[in-house]
């Protein structure tokens, strides 16, 4: 048993390493092989041949391809993503600065997604075919089908410009900007750290709309999965047995059915969290939210491959890491996998 477990871990490590290598190969391929000349991007098309060759040499592009790939892997693994031409900083430093904003947004979004999605999914399963089931289905379908960037714009018109219920684009009102020091990079936590409730509530008013829009998609996904997991459990015979023993409907659902879907639910939530990074690209653009997605788009529009590929690579790594993590959690939480 012990040995088999060890073997599984080794195999998993090998598979993760292979995927990681593939990830690096793919970003390398995108950066070097496709018709985008990094030398031209730096020197411009007016440069003479000697300047061109010099820059080409500096970038190491005159070396054989496998040497370039090896150097690329070494640089990426040591966290050296090169310089971002459009900000003038190292990409790694830029990313450190923008990531907390995205993580804060995604965390609020997933709280909204789980907080609404799970109860909605349970209710839809318990009262299958009822009004609430239909409502959950329609809400979910619209969540799958609506472009988040459009919802964001409409939300800004309605809740910010017309009703004035929430803050506008950005993380804070201009008046509050730079009024608190950065400790964690999470605006709400930093405000609490300083004990400045005014800034805290301003930050909350700014994050609530983008987080709701971003969280809507995950809410749709989570409620749909919760519903189908619950239906599966409720059809099991142990539920009949629990009822026959005299347990009331909701007690059986809470103590038996819901507890049994927790493991699956954790996997779904982790996956939903990972996909928030994708949603962040467009949501952050709409809300001028200075996070990772905003940075990626700015890099794209500036034609800065270093920044773009670093972002792509990081998202890939986060995905692999989250998958690995849910796998481990699954093993820890589900006694059958031991």
């Amino acid at each position, binding site marked *: 048993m012990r040995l088999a477990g060890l073997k599984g871990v080794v195999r998993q490590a090998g598979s993760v390493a292979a995927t990681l290598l593939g990830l690096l190969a793919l970003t390398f391929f995108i950066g070097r092989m496709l018709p985008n000349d990094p030398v031209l991007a730096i020197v411009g098309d007016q440069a003479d041949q000697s300047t061109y060759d010099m820059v080409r040499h500096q970038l190491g592009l005159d070396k054989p391809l496998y040497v370039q790939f090896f150097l690329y892997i070494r640089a990426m693994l040591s966290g050296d993503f090169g310089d971002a031409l459009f900000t003038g900083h190292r990409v790694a430093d830029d990313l450190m600065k923008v990531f907390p904003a995205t993580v804060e947004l995604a965390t609020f979004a997933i709280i909204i997604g789980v907080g609404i999605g799970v109860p909605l999914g349970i209710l839809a399963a318990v009262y299958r075919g009822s009004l609430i089931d239909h409502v959950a289905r329609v809400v979910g*379908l619209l969540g799958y089908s609506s472009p988040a960037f459009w919802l964001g714009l409409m939300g800004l018109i309605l809740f910010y410009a017309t009703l004035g219920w929430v803050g506008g684009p950005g993380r804070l009102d201009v008046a509050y900007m730079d009024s608190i020091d950065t400790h964690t990079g999470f605006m709400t936590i930093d405000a609490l750290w300083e004990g400045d409730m005014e800034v805290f509530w301003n930050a909350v008013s700014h994050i609530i709309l983008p987080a709701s829009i971003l969280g809507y998609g995950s809410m749709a996904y989570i409620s749909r999965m919760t519903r189908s997991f619950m239906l599966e459990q409720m059809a099991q015979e142990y539920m009949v047995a629990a009822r026959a023993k005299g347990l009331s409907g909701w007690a059986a659902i809470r103590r038996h059915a819901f507890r049994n879907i927790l493991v699956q639910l954790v996997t779904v939530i982790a996956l939903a969290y990972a996909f928030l990074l994708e949603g962040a690209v467009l949501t952050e653009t709409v809300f001028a939210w200075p996070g990772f997605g905003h940075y990626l788009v700015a890099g794209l529009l500036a034609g800065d491959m270093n920044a773009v590929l670093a972002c792509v690579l990081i998202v890939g790594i986060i995905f692999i890491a989250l998958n690995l993590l849910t796998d481990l959690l699954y093993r820890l939480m589900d006694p059958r996998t031991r």
Partner: protein
Amino acid sequence: MTALQGPDRTRPINAGLRDWLTADVTTSPWQARAQRVYLGWRRLSSNRLTMFGLAVLLVLVVVAALAPVIAPEGYDAQSLNGRLAAPSAAHWLGTDDLGRDVFARMVYGARVTLMIACLVAAIVAPIGLLVGTVAGYFGGWVDTLLMRINDVFLSFPSLILALGFVAALGPGIRNAIIAIALTAWPPIARLARAETLTFRNADYIAAVRIQGASALRIILRHVVPMCLPSVVVRITLNMAGIIITAAGLGFLGLGAQPPQPEWGSMLSAGRAHLSGAWWISAVPGIAILLTSLAFNLLGDGLRDVLDPRSDT
């Protein structure tokens, strides 16, 4: 021959056709096939939501095909005097910041959206089917290699990877289609592989193999057709996401370039006039939502008919 017999001629043609389609005993493979299509259609058409989705898509196809008739002024006719006009009888959906009729641009935009959807499907289906069936049929190191490559692509969210490709290829609608197709094939390949695995050891495959059929022939003639229904369902469902991704690329200015009327870029162009002329952004968004919703509904219905195993 039967048409010459007495009783048949007095019947309405419809009844004859329906009898033929619902006969208990079929007389030809063609009749059997027609019966299956007919029964599938009856199940599909009994679902009202599916029919709604199908209707929306049909309307879209008609609008795209008849665009010059519906909107004779074209998508690029500017009238700078009538900029940002509100919806009216002359301009049903108002005008944009160059005085172009938003309705006309929406109509021509349907062409762009449908073209993206069709081209992506036309690229993704063969690649996904080929990779998936080859991996599933041969197994061994071929399977391992192909699925490793698949895993790498699957470890990115599609929009992020598409952005990476567009960054390298350059903006434009052709490159957007290539980028989306490159990110959309892995789930199809994985599905086709899973399907192939379920029947690659089936007796009928073994029978064909013993008859001396080549691997290529077995895959193309006997494996691929078996995978088709679930692949069609999956592509229809994925089309919803593909349209949103395409619109997202357009929104970021990386897809269709002006003056081409793409819904995503129209939405983006309206951002500057949100407070005064909200319809410029609102209308394309609703169109994207409806189209994507239609694909979702149709895909759900198709799944119920074509792929009875998976029910959620």
